[in-house]
């Protein structure tokens, strides 16, 4: 009985790591001055929203068994495109955001093509695409930063906290809404279940009649489109977009990866949830409001990431040790031996 109890708690920690992490951060928050204020919470979650979009994309790709490194530059590219179109061509915001998202769809298709048709490993393919995007951005802007100009109306809407008692900005609420929609798509539609299938075992999925190429491409499209939409909104939310965004601090890509792994999404795909990632990203956003020095932030986030990787790796290692053996039979035999003694 006692034995069983411990087993449940191990599983609980494993499945709910992200919630545990968030709870931990909230508890620490009690001891920090000015942490539980409307302003602080809404600013922290608002500023952390961009990474939630990236984490969303990264998690979807990871569930499908792939990695998408283009997410960071995709969001920057979309932000630049959105602000550029609005500033130079004078298009309304809705059209700008739509065009930026379509650019994301396009990049997602290219990624999917590289991975499924040209059979390049997703990590390497998107590593290369990253530089293609970076180069295109430079050509588009000439390396300059784009800003929203004087047109703050829409920006203010995104910055406002629409629901009185909730300390969340519109931008964060939109982000959350999209995360939940993607969650529902992944969990309750045929396409969503196919994504889990191809991540779990590509060959089995193919044999089961799933059009694996199409599903993989779709996963990349969702990832890129989400990042593009998020990036475009972030450009408006913060009022500016620059090419080097996020290159110098802790790379948003790194945070997306960290949150995905902390959340419990399997590195090799087939298991995971965008909600887990969302919770860990909110926790990371609040963590940044607690540890103010960038250095400490990097160290804490990295330590948690490494802890999770080591834990998962060693757990897998131990599981693999028993491959081919029958631990249950062995235990039963031992029990009987003990009885007979």
């Amino acid at each position, binding site marked *: 009985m006692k034995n069983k109890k411990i087993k449940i708690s191990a599983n609980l920690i494993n499945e709910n790591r992200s919630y545990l992490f968030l709870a931990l951060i909230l508890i620490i928050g009690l001891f920090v001055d000015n942490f539980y204020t409307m302003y602080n919470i809404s600013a922290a979650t608002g500023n952390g929203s961009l990474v939630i979009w990236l984490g969303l994309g990264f998690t979807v790709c990871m569930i499908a068994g792939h990695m998408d490194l283009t997410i960071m530059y995709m969001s920057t590219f979309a932000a630049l495109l959105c602000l550029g179109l609005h500033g130079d061509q004078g298009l309304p915001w809705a059209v700008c955001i739509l065009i930026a998202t379509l650019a994301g769809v396009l990049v997602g298709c290219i990624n999917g093509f590289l991975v499924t048709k040209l059979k390049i490993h997703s990590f390497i393919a998107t590593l290369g695409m990253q530089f293609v995007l970076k180069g295109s951005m430079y050509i588009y802007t000439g390396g300059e930063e784009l800003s929203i100009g004087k047109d703050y109306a829409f920006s203010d809407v995104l910055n406002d906290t629409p629901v009185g008692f909730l300390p969340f900005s519109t931008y964060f609420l939109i982000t959350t809404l999209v995360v939940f929609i993607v969650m529902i798509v992944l969990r309750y539609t045929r396409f969503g279940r196919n994504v889990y299938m191809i991540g779990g075992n590509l060959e089995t999925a193919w044999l089961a009649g799933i059009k694996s190429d199409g599903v993989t491409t779709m996963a990349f499209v969702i990832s890129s489109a989400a990042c593009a939409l998020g990036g475009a909104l972030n450009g408006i939310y913060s009022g500016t977009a620059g090419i080097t*965004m*996020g290159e110098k601090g802790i790379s948003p890509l790194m945070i997306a990866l960290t949150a995905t792994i902390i959340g419990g999404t399997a590195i090799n795909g087939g298991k995971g949830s965008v909600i887990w990632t969302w919770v860990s990203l909110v926790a990371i956003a609040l963590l940044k409001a607690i540890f*103010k020095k960038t250095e400490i932030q990097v160290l804490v986030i990295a330590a948690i990431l490494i802890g999770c990787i080591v834990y998962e790796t060693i757990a897998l290692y131990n599981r693999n040790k028993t491959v081919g053996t029958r631990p249950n039979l062995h235990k039963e035999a031992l029990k009987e031996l003990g009885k007979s003694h």
Partner: protein
Amino acid sequence: MFKKYLAVMLAGTMLVSTLCLTGCGNSGSDSKDDKKASSEDSSSGGDNLAESKELLQKAIDDIQTTDNHQMMAEGTTFDVPEAEGDAEALEKLDDSDMNKWHYYEYLDWDSEADSRFPESPADGQKGKHVILIVHGAHAWTTCYQEAFEEACEAVGMTCDVYDPNWDQSTQDGYIDQAINEQPDAIVVIPVSADHAGQQFKKITKAGIPAFCSNTLPEADAMNNILAYTGPNDWYQMRNLASKLGEELGGKGGVAYITHNVGTSPYYARTFGPMSTLAEEYPDIKSLDVQSPGFEASAVKQVVSDWITKYGKDLNAIVLADDSDQAIGATEACKAAGREDILIVAAGMSKQGAELIQSGELKYASYQSCQADAGLAVRTVSEYFNGEDIERVSYIGTDIIGADNVEEYLPCQW
């Protein structure tokens, strides 16, 4: 078995880290309480203002930069000339036209649209708390930060420094956090000129006096900035360019290596000299502009390629930085046996001073990092003392060559 063990370990680590972290949190709040207590102490004494003024005067007289100049010297101001047309018309002009850069060079803002700034408490700077948000980690920033802390301590203020590591969104986050802490003043070195407007608007809206230091913001951001202090990058680069033109005898080819594209030093240190040379010495051609960043090997590659490509047409190189860029450029010239190429740079760092002494770098502009911090602290203090402050003031500058480099040694960073 192992899994359970690990789960327990994980939970244990989390618990321990919680305890450690709460410890950190507590210590943080302790220091804040101290600060509050001290500020109450000082404000209860009525002579805080007089004492503050005395402290400030003493600091101005006493504190020296590491290269033995006055750290908190009075700032200088420049007259803003009339712009020849509005910003859009100027934007269409040629890069080498001086007029194009009017709105980049001068903080030419419409003072009628100023927001309502918080009133000075006029009770002295002693015991006040200031938050400094810099742009990112660099040897220059470290030097600035240390000078800022030294100056703050000397005038009796306390300060916290946040470092967003050159990241725009991180800096936004820091500004939110700084506002959340409700300090007496916030000093910001904006990462991006364009975005500064929004950042300062937020601070001023929250009723906290906002000061901008070092990096030029866009002109309209001044509507929400109480005062700007910093170097006059354009002026010193124009001086440097005049000196270079004189040295070249009014003819030859010049190539430029820029700062990070889009930042205010990028414009000042590339198009400042370019437009000055075009105006004063029309025979000097500008050959190429490249932005290889701040890596010595990348700069070396660019300069080597230039030497092979332009040959004898290349007579001078203007650099935006006198440390890594200068090392790369001088080494490329040396390797190609082209010591005749004149190299000038914006300065001034330790490596730059060494290169000037060895003659490899011809001239560098002098931009005192510590005086920059000193002027910011001085302006903030004067604001707290209720004095009238200049909205825009600049630190002094000079051109350093082999003959006067000794005056500026040892270097600040």
